[in-house]
């Protein structure tokens, strides 16, 4: 490792080209870059042996076949930094990038189990994951998959798992906090870019988790050990022990068991019972579904964002047409129920995510550029905002013209439902406050949105006070 020739092959960050992705800089094995609108990954010489082992051992084939790793093709183009490069590959694209703080409980749990399964499969072929970041997992075709092809290294028996700390912080700690304390604690992942610090998790978890052996070990004891050695240097000569392969497998097995036993039952949050007590009579609901279906058939969008999707009743009108659909909702319970339904029905085109549109995901990480804000991942071709406007305009005081501008940035086509003051839900929102919304009516709404959109259709929903609109953004 003190071989000077090898040092020359290590990429230093000052050599990173400007076209490299802002999130792809920590690993000297290679990096992502885009050229002419296509995404490529440069594989560096320093990673050569590991890459060749990945491809020749059969691990790559097995992982891709089971949907656990994105496939790639060899790319016959000049590398971005040729003097460092071994190969350039073109990975399969994920249609929408989402982040762990946007996932519901079972999504994070499945991403964790996916990581551990990949690790087990890797060990069988003599390889091991050198990181276990939740950001390396994306949801594609309805299930979690690893997107970092260069995450693997040749396994050498004797070494502990280098990614153990990261796994505990990115997966085990947040899942335990969501299960034992509050589902909303996944939002800590937004603040702590490398997972939740174990000492914080240890403090927040109830003391009964100390009687749960895996949590006591991998969180509480782990946190304590980290504290103990935080300012100590350990010399190689002092470390006599090694970690055998069996012990390694035992660690992975124990982590898997810990994750599997964590569960959360969604109930008691205000929206989960939404569709059983809404303002829609059965005919009204049917009519609304019909209107949305017709609008979708008319637009034929490539993708759809359903804002305030609840458990995805209307999202499925899009996803069942084979349209890539994202079902956003502020309520983790609704997202969880939606995802569970996706799993049961093996749906491939629907991705439920947690999102508060009054405070959507910001851009975070190094230079505020590592992880994209929600608006940076926009626009969608079409968006649905059903039974949503009154929550933004009334509950959150967002003026209608600002709402219109927001939607225009978000999407080209808009299927939107206006809920007037005569509707009982709006009356409930206004019951305990002063009505400071003089322009909140059909005419005011159409005027505000007419500035940025062509209103193609306006249809009153039967047996309801509400009106459905089909709008197309103006250029």
């Amino acid at each position, binding site marked *: 490792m003190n071989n000077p020739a090898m040092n020359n092959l290590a990429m230093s960050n000052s050599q990173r080209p400007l076209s490299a992705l802002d999130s792809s800089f920590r690993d000297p094995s290679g990096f992502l870059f885009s050229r002419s609108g296509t995404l490529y990954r440069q594989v560096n010489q*320093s990673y050569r042996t590991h890459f060749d082992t990945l491809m020749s051992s059969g691990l790559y084939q097995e992982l891709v076949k089971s949907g656990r790793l994105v496939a790639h093709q060899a790319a016959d183009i000049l590398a971005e930094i040729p003097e460092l490069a071994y190969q350039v590959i073109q990975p399969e694209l994920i249609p929408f990038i989402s982040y762990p703080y946007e996932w519901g409980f079972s999504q994070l749990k499945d991403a964790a189990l996916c990581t551990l399964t990949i690790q087990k499969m890797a060990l069988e072929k003599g390889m091991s994951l*050198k990181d276990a970041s939740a950001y390396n997992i994306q949801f594609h075709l309805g*299930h979690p998959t690893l997107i970092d092809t260069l995450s693997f290294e040749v396994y050498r028996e004797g070494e502990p798992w280098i990614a153990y700390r990261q796994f505990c912080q990115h997966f085990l700690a947040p899942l335990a906090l969501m299960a034992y304390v509050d589902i909303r604690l996944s939002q800590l992942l937004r603040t702590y870019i490398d997972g939740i610090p174990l000492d914080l998790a240890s403090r927040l978890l109830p003391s009964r988790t100390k009687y749960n052996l895996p949590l006591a070990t991998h969180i509480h004891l782990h946190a304590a*050990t980290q504290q103990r050695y935080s300012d100590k240097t350990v010399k190689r000569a002092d*470390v006599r*022990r090694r970690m055998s392969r069996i012990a390694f497998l035992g660690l992975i097995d124990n982590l898997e068991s810990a994750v599997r036993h964590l569960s959360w039952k969604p109930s008691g949050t205000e929206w989960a019972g939404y569709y059983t007590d809404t303002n829609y009579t059965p005919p009204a609901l049917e009519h609304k579904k019909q209107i949305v279906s017709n609008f979708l058939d008319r637009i034929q969008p490539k993708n759809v964002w359903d804002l305030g999707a609840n458990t995805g009743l209307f999202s499925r009108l899009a996803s069942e047409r084979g349209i890539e659909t994202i079902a956003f909702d502020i309520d983790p319970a609704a997202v969880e129920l939606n995802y569970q339904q996706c799993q049961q029905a093996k749906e491939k085109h629907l991705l439920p995510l947690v999102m508060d549109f009054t405070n959507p995901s910001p851009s975070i990480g190094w230079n505020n550029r590592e992880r994209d804000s929600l608006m940076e991942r926009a626009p969608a071709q079409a968006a649905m905002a059903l039974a949503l406007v009154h929550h933004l305009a009334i509950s959150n005081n967002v003026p209608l013209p600002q709402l219109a501008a927001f939607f225009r940035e978000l999407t080209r086509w808009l299927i939107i439902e206006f809920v007037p003051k005569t509707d009982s839900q709006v009356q409930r929102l206004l019951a305990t406050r002063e009505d400071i919304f003089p322009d909140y009516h059909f005419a005011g709404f159409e005027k505000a949105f007419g500035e940025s959109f062509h209103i193609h259709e306006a249809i009153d929903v039967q047996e309801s006070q509400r009106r459905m609109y089909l709008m197309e953004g103006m250029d």
Partner: protein
Amino acid sequence: MQFVHFVQHSIGLFAPLKRNFAYLDPGTGSFLLQLLLATLLGGLFLVRVFWNRIKDFFKRVFSKNKTVESPANEQPGNEQPGNEQ
């Protein structure tokens, strides 16, 4: 930083294989905790594997009249993604 050097040095002793400067800081405490638990974890794992084999054996013995599930289906790593629960 010293810890990463430590890892790199110890790996150098194993084989001339180029180690890809594992860029991730594994954490001194995390590293040592694993070594500390290694024997226990290995033992637990062997017990679990052994116990599963005993269970399979008895399943086969007591269901000779029914079609028997191949033990390969119960190997870890064979689950389809998304069905991890």
